[in-house]
């Protein structure tokens, strides 16, 4: 079992490493991730939402839908813990 797990881990790791070959260099300002969407956020977010903390702006507004579900996730976690642990009276 352990050997199997080890092999599975190695295979997964190898595939992931293989995938990183094509990544842009670390910290490259010209990487696709840095030039496509985020420039809009950095340049426009303050003007569009009047929030200087871009992370908050994106979190609360541009991707507010995600955040809503994030809140629901943690809410569910709390409920799930209660419902799992409490002995029913």
């Amino acid at each position: 079992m352990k050997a199997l797990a080890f092999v599975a881990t190695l295979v997964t790791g190898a595939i992931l490493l293989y995938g990183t070959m094509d990544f842009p260099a670390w910290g490259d300002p010209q990487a696709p991730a840095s030039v496509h969407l985020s420039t809009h956020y950095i340049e426009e977010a303050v003007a569009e939402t009047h929030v200087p903390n871009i992370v908050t702006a994106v979190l609360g507004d541009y991707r507010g839908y995600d955040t809503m579900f994030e809140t629901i996730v943690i809410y569910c976690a709390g409920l799930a813990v209660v419902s799992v642990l409490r002995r029913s009276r």
Partner: protein
Amino acid sequence: MEDFITLVIAKYNYWIYVILMMIGFYAMIGKKNLVKKLLGMNIFQTAIILMFVSAGVKKGASIPILDKHEVLTHGIEAAQIVNPLPHVLMLTAIVVSVSITGVALAVILRIYRKYGTLEEDEIMEKLGQ
């Protein structure tokens, strides 16, 4: 060889995350102890978060909190600020990870209450009887 070293310098961050991910993944599927599995899961998730955060890094850029009036009057150069999007995503991912940890811990408590052990093989033995 020269190329290889530049490759190492350019990518080592990614490699570290792959190693962390492997450690976590191994713990999840290879370890018998349920808490260990859960710790492995947390390591796995932090590794992924590390990958995302690394993707947002720009050399020599500053944190994504701006000066409101400065920006509104003069605008801003995108290359000066790190990419905020991965941060947003990872905030969500952290929350998800802690939620799952919470639920899993509750389940672990119940399992211990029922079977008196946290070792997978011992539980299986008890079930087999």
